[in-house]
């Protein structure tokens, strides 16, 4: 039997987040209409009222899981998706809202259960991978829109996306930027942070603040020693690791080494 040719179906889902990563798709001003021509954008609430029922060939998931309702919803999304890719630090690591994970959880829980009619939230913010199988995780707070186009292209071509897991340091070298850590003594998380942004901060005379999360096998202990030599206090070391990817294991453990 002949199989009718059809365009692959893309869905974009939102959980707890700022909308910035899905906005990156609309920010692909030069590529958007080409993308929309090659695929069927079947579900993308930020952009259209139209909804085409699943299953979907590729689901892009933004945001973290912070409610009981969303714990169920992500399972439903997974069931309807051939491939599921998380976009951004919230979906991949729990995001900035995962700072609640280190707060007075007892206080949060009693608040939640005392007035469930008022506030419906879990005590934790967790990445999508804590709930369902994820086929690829795109890092960043926010993601790099060119990496997003690469991921969509790769999945449509049924190949692995190119998104190197090395550190921001390599991107600085590729860009020809001066090392702010060595040359200026500026505290920088570049040596332990996952590439992808294009080393923006050092190019603007600023140390990397780790918004792409940990690289593969980061040596945070060694970096913290260097930063302490530069005069970074224990309290500030703790804060440095405890931001948009605080819930990832390497950054969580390193933050804990420098206070609570």
């Amino acid at each position, binding site marked *: 039997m002949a199989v009718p040719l059809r365009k692959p179906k893309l869905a974009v889902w939102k959980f707890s987040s700022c909308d910035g990563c899905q906005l990156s798709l609309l920010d692909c001003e030069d590529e958007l209409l080409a993308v929309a021509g090659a695929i069927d954008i079947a579900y993308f609430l930020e*952009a259209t009222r139209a909804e085409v029922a699943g299953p979907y060939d590729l689901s892009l998931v933004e945001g973290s899981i912070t409610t009981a309702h969303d714990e169920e919803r992500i399972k439903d999304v997974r069931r309807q998706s051939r491939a599921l890719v998380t976009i951004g630090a919230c979906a991949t690591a729990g995001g900035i809202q995962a700072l609640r994970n280190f707060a007075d959880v007892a206080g949060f829980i009693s608040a939640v259960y005392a007035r469930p009619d*008022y*506030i419906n939230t879990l005590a934790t913010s967790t990445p999508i991978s804590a709930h369902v199988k994820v086929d690829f995780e795109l890092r960043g707070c926010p993601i790099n829109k060119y990496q997003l186009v690469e991921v969509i292209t790769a999945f449509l071509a049924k190949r692995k996306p190119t998104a190197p897991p090395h550190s921001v340091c390599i991107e600085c070298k590729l860009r020809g930027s001066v090392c702010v850590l060595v040359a200026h003594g500026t505290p920088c998380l570049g040596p332990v942070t996952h590439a992808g942004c294009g080393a923006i901060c050092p190019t603007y005379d600023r140390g990397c603040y780790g918004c792409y999360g940990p690289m593969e096998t980061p040596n945070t202990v060694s970096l913290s020693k260097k930063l302490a030599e530069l005069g970074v206090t224990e309290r500030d070391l703790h804060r440095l690791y405890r931001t948009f990817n605080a819930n990832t294991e390497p950054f969580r453990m390193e933050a804990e080494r420098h206070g609570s």
Partner: protein
Amino acid sequence: MARKTIKVDNLARVEGEGALTVVIRDNRVQSAELRIFEPPRFFEAFLRGRAYSEAPDITARICGICPVAYQMSSVHAMEDAFGIAVGGQLRALRRLLYCGEWIESHGLHVYMLHAPDFLGYEGALEMAKDHADVVKRGLALKKAGNGLMTVIGGREVHPINVRVGGFYKAPLKRDLVEAAEALKRARDIAVDTVRWVAGFDFPDCTRDYELVSLQHPDEYPFNEGHIVSNRGLDITAHEYDQHFGEQHVPHSNALQSRKRDDGGAYLVGPLARYGLNFERLSPLAKEAARSAGLRPVCMNPYQSIVVRAVELVYACDEAIRIIEAYERPEQPLVPVVPRAGIGYGATEAPRGMIYHCYHLDHDGTILNAKIIPPTSQNQATIEEDLTAFVNAWLDLPETALRHRCEQTVRNYDPCISCATHFLDLRLDRG
């Protein structure tokens, strides 16, 4: 007549997750609720104990569509607490960055989120099938705004270059001049946009709103000015809390702001800014408004798309003016010395006034934070609009009626991600 309920379970083409319930009884709208179910993210809770210097980057993450509004409001609040003034080219650069955000955000809303309502499309991508040139024009406009954000801020979503006292690095004149070329084309597009959207079919709906926005003696407002209204309010950001208060309504994960004196709703955003500051628009923007038949005060929220287009002309004009006068400052920031105190900041996000207040310790540690975004201020007004306007359309078929209700919400370009970030956690231990 029996009771009838119109429900929109997932509002499309807004930022964030919201829903709508309109209850009709005896052929009258009995109640309208904009339900915000975007989960709370507790920003104010975890800002406590952080350094003052972290606030611009942390609060930016409240909203991916208007991060600059959060960055600007937080740095102004911190500088207020520390007694610092940022002037000259650094001040101009902040204004320029804000122009970029307005162009990006308004371009997105006018072309991709709002125009499809008037032309009968589900979204801009569907509209592109019939009107590719129109959508391309909108994308070019948006791209000019994003380009400006990228030159100054390093990237368009969550720029990295803003800090208390100024910037990490001041852009080179030649890089800004390059961005200005795209802005000149964008300005032409914006003028065409005003003409285009002015020709849409607008329902004849006006209400007697209390308009609230910043007002600066010499400029259309971005970062500075008094908070004023068309009913005589004239206060500084320090006094905001005495005049406006929030209520927690059970159907929403966001707090609703109302006036403290009479509990009334008020309106922030393009209609308010325009109505209170028409005289401070550039000559080109004023001319674009006049030729579109827009009076200096507009009280029809459906025409907010025309006002946004006029603001697009202004933002392009203002950005080009700032770039032409730009001289790269020797230092990218003024010195910052923290001290204990309270700092207030109010600025104009694309969708309306945003207010930040921080209590700070002697070393600049944040003790307490309060953030009020525009959408929580507009929420009560949106519900009143639905109650007032929907009555006229009750005879429409269900799908058309539902669409009208959605459109009424989208008039405000609501940012639901913003509105829910700040839910106060209320401990009730029974």
